């Protein structure tokens, strides 16, 4: 380390002193997420018929490397079907504490029902609150459990901390 090297380094840092910081002031300004970012899961519906795409086949649970998905299927009532097909997911749970957001469930799903979205603000207080059920993931649900509780208590809309580009798989999901 010679004196010239030190001078070079000092000059470099001095240059940054006069540049505009690149920091995103996150809670205040929204982050722009990449389109392919994998965040919290969504369970999609068919946009035209409004039926759930999930048919309760458990392939996502089988593909999951951390065994964080639990699916229990039930027969559809032919007169009032929940999903197009013979069966639907009566219980669909994902443990967000175990999920590694690898996207294998998304890959395994034959009907494209489960897709990883852009939501990443998943902090919460209790273990049970990290187990997301169908009502937490079906299309139209915005924000984490904590964010929804907070918004309900304050009688405001859920404010998401990000902007996301459109992604084809997330049809019907509106941030």
């Amino acid at each position, binding site marked *: 380390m010679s004196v010239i090297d*030190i001078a070079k380094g*000092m000059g470099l*840092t001095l240059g*940054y002193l006069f540049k505009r*910081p*690149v*920091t995103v002031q996150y809670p205040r300004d929204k982050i722009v997420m990449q389109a392919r970012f994998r965040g919290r899961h969504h369970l999609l519906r068919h946009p035209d018929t409004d039926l759930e795409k999930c048919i309760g086949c458990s392939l996502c649970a089988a593909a999951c490397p951390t065994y964080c998905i639990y699916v229990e299927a039930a027969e559809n009532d032919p007169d009032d079907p929940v999903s197009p097909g013979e069966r639907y997911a009566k219980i669909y749970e994902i443990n967000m504490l175990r999920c590694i957001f690898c996207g294998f469930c998304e890959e395994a799903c034959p009907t494209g029902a489960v897709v990883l979205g852009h939501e990443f603000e998943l902090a919460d207080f209790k273990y049970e609150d990290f187990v997301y059920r169908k009502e937490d993931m079906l299309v139209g649900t915005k924000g984490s459990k904590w964010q929804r509780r907070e918004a309900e208590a304050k009688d405001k809309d859920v404010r998401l901390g990000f902007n996301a580009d459109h992604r084809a798989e997330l049809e019907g999901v509106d941030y």
Partner: protein
Amino acid sequence: MTHDPLWVTFIKALVLCVVLLGAFAYMTVIERKLLGRFQHRYGPNLTGPGGWLQPIADAIKTIFKEDLVVTAADKFVLVLAPAISIVFALSAFGAIPAGPAGSLFGLNPWVMDLDIGILYIFAATSLGVYGIFLGGWAANSKYALLGSLRSSAQIISYELGLGLSVLAVIMVAGTLNLREIVETGIWSVSPWLWPGLALAFVTFVISGTAEVNRTPFDLPEAEQELVAGYLTEYSSIKWALYQMAEYVNMMTAAAFISTLFLGGYRGPAFLDAIIPGVSGWPIIWLVLKMAIFMFLFIWLKATLPRLRYDQLMRFGWLYVFEFALLAALVTGAVIAYVI
């Protein structure tokens, strides 16, 4: 040389303490903001307007934080050690003159005008290492003890460089009184002295940085290698006292360097042609010169990586010491044979 009554000196000491502690509080936020900008990010900018109330928030936080004391620690010494550090850090500053006699509303702008001002500051700053060493020992932790031992070794090594490089100034000014050194104007004595004084200045700045444990010589609190060195077991307000001592030491070092080498409270004389008397404005020039050195310390911290311990020792004993000796020799020879 004029003397103030004792009670005036006492009040001035009190005011100096308050000013230094206030300056410490704002140095922390200025340092964090500057470090942020050096690293292409914002510093603290949420607490208060522009983040400028951050020191108050920090103070409240450190006071109310849980104060942990290790079970096997020597509690008395553990509490005493940061106090030693801060007391010697604050008392060193009292000898720095901030203006000519009677320039502060008719008072002398220094707490004490010592004929051995340089020796006094050396004594006070080197006693500050007792705070560090006793703190590391009392914590009864190997990390803390290693950190404090390294600190002692480092400070002893760099004290030699510091003492030798100040010799040149003492020889030129012919006095140990800081105010008289400022009034001598060491650079105006003879241009033949400039090489020796410049060398002394460089070695003094380097060993001064090491003396106050600033990056790249911040080995005592090497958090990557020794958890946090001597203050591993310190928390809450005791930890804050160590930080306070470090920053006050830094300010003392900046003031000491300015006073010895850069004319302290005197401004550049050529500015008098533009605004008459501007070079004599009290305190402002000293604060300005101190600010330049504080900026340099922060800039160094933002740029340089920490030295390894053997590099530090090699650098101290083989380069700083040698060059300081050379500066003293050159200056002595010039004084003896040229002027």
